[in-house]
């Protein structure tokens, strides 16, 4: 996304001069820009993932700065630790780039706050009415029951979850008295970095490759990134039950493709109700739908009376790679676009 008035980008997929980063996931925080602006927790994450450099500038939530006449502030998006909505104001016209967000308070990411605006740029990863999340308390009850059940059956419990965000959310909401919890090295690293910037994440052992003790993981829960599915690394926990935490687990087809024993519908993106309520809460007139079922979601919003349209971005599998620039939609005064 490019702001032509302010001459900066938000979440650019390649190196630019000035980049504002909404959150630390790899499809948003990319290498190669000269100057980065992000929430301090996101900066900590970038330090781990993109390497330590000195061109990261931290900006706390609700603090305001000005770039080329555009007033910029960050606001909690509730997606993962440090995730931000980016508010842009120019001559009284307000746009909010929602980034990735969810409306449910997960207890560890600072909870989503609606930001009043004229134009809201909304993701719609789960922008269909088939996606309706249960409250996370219910999901975690399911996870604990599954874990206890596995313990009785003599199985280790392996949970696949994104290293950044989902893993910390799960750890935060686990009852650690249920049994030992181990983490994959990538999660261990991130947890350490986040603890260093003051996040309250319990210190959990990482899976130690040098220890060859079959019984070690019997009652344990192991949290690993999705990329470890089917890997030799996983085999050491055998016999185990494989649980996958993802919004996609809502569909039977996706779950079977993952070959998971158990799917937990736990997402860091807003569900259908969440998306609709978030948009309503901004009081906006215009919505730009990105990331997901953009065409369908925009058509739905138009029926609801919004001026809504779909915007292609690079990281949608359905789309060809195109230069990612906001369309030249100008308001009557030709101001912000």
């Amino acid at each position, binding site marked *: 996304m490019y702001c032509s008035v302010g001459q900066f980008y938000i979440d650019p997929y390649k190196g630019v001069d000035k980049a504002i980063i909404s959150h630390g996931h790899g499809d948003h925080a990319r290498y190669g820009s000269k100057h980065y602006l992000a929430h301090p927790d996101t900066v900590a994450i970038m330090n781990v993932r993109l390497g330590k450099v000195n061109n990261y500038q931290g900006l706390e939530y609700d603090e305001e700065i000005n770039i080329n006449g555009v007033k910029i502030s960050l606001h909690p998006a509730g997606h993962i630790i440090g995730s931000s909505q980016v508010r842009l104001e120019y001559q009284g016209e307000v746009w909010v780039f929602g980034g990735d967000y969810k409306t449910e308070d997960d207890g560890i990411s600072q909870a989503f706050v609606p930001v009043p605006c004229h134009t809201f740029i909304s993701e719609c990863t789960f922008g269909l009415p088939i996606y309706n999340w249960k409250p996370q308390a219910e999901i975690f009850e399911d996870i604990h029951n599954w874990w206890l059940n596995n313990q009785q059956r003599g199985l280790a419990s392996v949970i696949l979850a994104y290293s950044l965000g989902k893993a910390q959310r799960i750890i935060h909401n686990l009852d650690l008295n249920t049994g030992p919890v181990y983490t994959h090295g990538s999660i261990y690293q991130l947890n350490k970095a986040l603890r260093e910037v003051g996040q309250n994440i319990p210190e959990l052992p990482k899976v130690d490759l040098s220890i060859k003790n079959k019984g070690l993981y019997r009652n344990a829960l192991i949290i690993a990134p999705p990329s470890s599915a089917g890997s030799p690394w996983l085999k050491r926990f055998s016999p185990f039950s494989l649980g996958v935490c993802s919004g996609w687990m809502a*569909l039977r087809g996706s779950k079977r493709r993952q070959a998971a024993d158990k799917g937990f519908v736990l997402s860091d993106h807003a569900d259908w109700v969440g998306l609709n309520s978030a948009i309503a809460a901004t009081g906006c007139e215009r919505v730009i739908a990105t990331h997901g079922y953009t065409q369908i979601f925009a058509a739905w919003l138009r029926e609801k009376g919004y001026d809504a349209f779909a915007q292609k971005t690079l990281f949608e599998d359905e789309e060809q790679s195109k230069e990612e620039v906001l369309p030249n939609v100008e308001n009557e005064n030709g101001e912000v676009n």
Partner: protein
Amino acid sequence: MKDFAQLYYDLDQTNKTNDKVEILKEYFLNANEEDKKWALALFIGKRPKRIISSTLLREYAAEFSGIPLWLFEESYSIVGDLSETISLLLPPPTQAESYSLSYWIGLMQSMGKKSIDERKEAMIQAWDTMNSQERMVFSKITSSTFRVGVSQNLVIRALSQAYHIDGNVIAHRLMGNWNPNEISFDELILSHNNKDLLSRPYPFCLAYPIEKQVNELGQATKWVAEWKWDGIRSQIIKRAGQLFIWSRGEELITDKFPELQTLLNIIPDGTVIDGEILPYSEGKVLTFNVLQTRIGRKNLNPKILREAPVIVYAYDLLEWDNEDIRGKTLADRQALLNTLVNGLDQNAQIQLPPSIYFNDWDELPAIRTKSRAYMAEGLMLKRKESIYQVGRKKGDWWKWKIDPLSIDAVMIYAQRGSGRRANLYTDYTFAVKNGEEFVPFTKAYSGLTDKEILEVDKWIKFHTKEKFGPVRTVDPQLVFEIGFEGIQKSSRHKSGIALRFPRMLRWRTDKVVNDINTLEDLQQMLAQYEKGL
């Protein structure tokens, strides 16, 4: 119905055979009599009549969910399964009552006489008492689309383990047209007398495709080779003065072949013959295409019977003189069969198929290449000492089919699949060239590996030209070799031809669109095929 819906989900979510058997067994041992009878009926494909069309089901579900129909359709195209879409969209139930599977089936059966409005009312009230799993299963039953990834064999194993009855006995008890409304679970599965089931066929003995070289099967003289006919595999049953004809799909098809009523007068009571119904005229078997014109027709007028005459080629005898002789050897059974059929009029509507003589395995490949001239699909190899097995067992019977016909074609449309393939583009339409034009001639769904499917899916998403609802037109670039078992004229298709059992044999990454076959090539194949070449 919560327990039945849970059973459906549990079965759906495991690939492990032993787990499935265990899950089924637990259900049969714990469910009430009526429920387990209906569950069994559903598992083996005895579905109650559809009471609501899928079009109406969509409308009701969209209305009850408070979303526009177009958004329902979009959701459906992502989920790939209508009933699952419904279960994901409906608002939470407001009624606390819970009813059993057999209660709901009873209600569905009473709907037959009700008006559309009453059915709608009943459907919405039912949904309002159900959790999401129940809603999915219930919607599948009402729209008569209930299927579960459990083979009849697994159901038989589970029943066998639960009740300590031999699997072959269970398999036999499940055959035929028992009606769940008229029989109890105990009568069907546990009772020893099979009084009621005069028409009950035996489980068909089935063959696997041969995996090794034929000469590895041992001594050639211990084997019989037969043509593998391309007709309707059937059991011809005469008991108590009545004739019953069953297809291999366990459909009673007696009425579809009125001319075979002549058999009633010529074969003795207490006889069951395994054979093939084939289109036949002037001493020759005709192509399956001829038979296809009369299958599925409700009214068989004299013209159709004249144009598509049939006979039965008999190849095995399962019951003789009211006695189950499946335990005798194939040689003994066929000896009895030969005596029976040879004693009949030469023009009888049941005949012995032409025999194949061979002394050594070396002779068979040459014989096999003549299959199409006989209108056969290849050869069957059967061990002379073999008993008539229940179902598909390895070792005694093998099928050795000729290679399929094949043609190179380009993909022009793609559509999302369903079930495990939901959300992936797996259903493709293929075209051949006619001058500069691409003429679609077939769809195919199977034949690619999971890895290829992912690759093609991704390609499709990046090469879409247009979207029409769930269908995308794509750049005509990807070439596939399409295999099929038969080809016939069709006035319903733009290409003028229709294929039997089309599937993808290979993704021809070595070929480009200029290399594909033409419509003329297809027409030539049709002409040759009809001549048996």
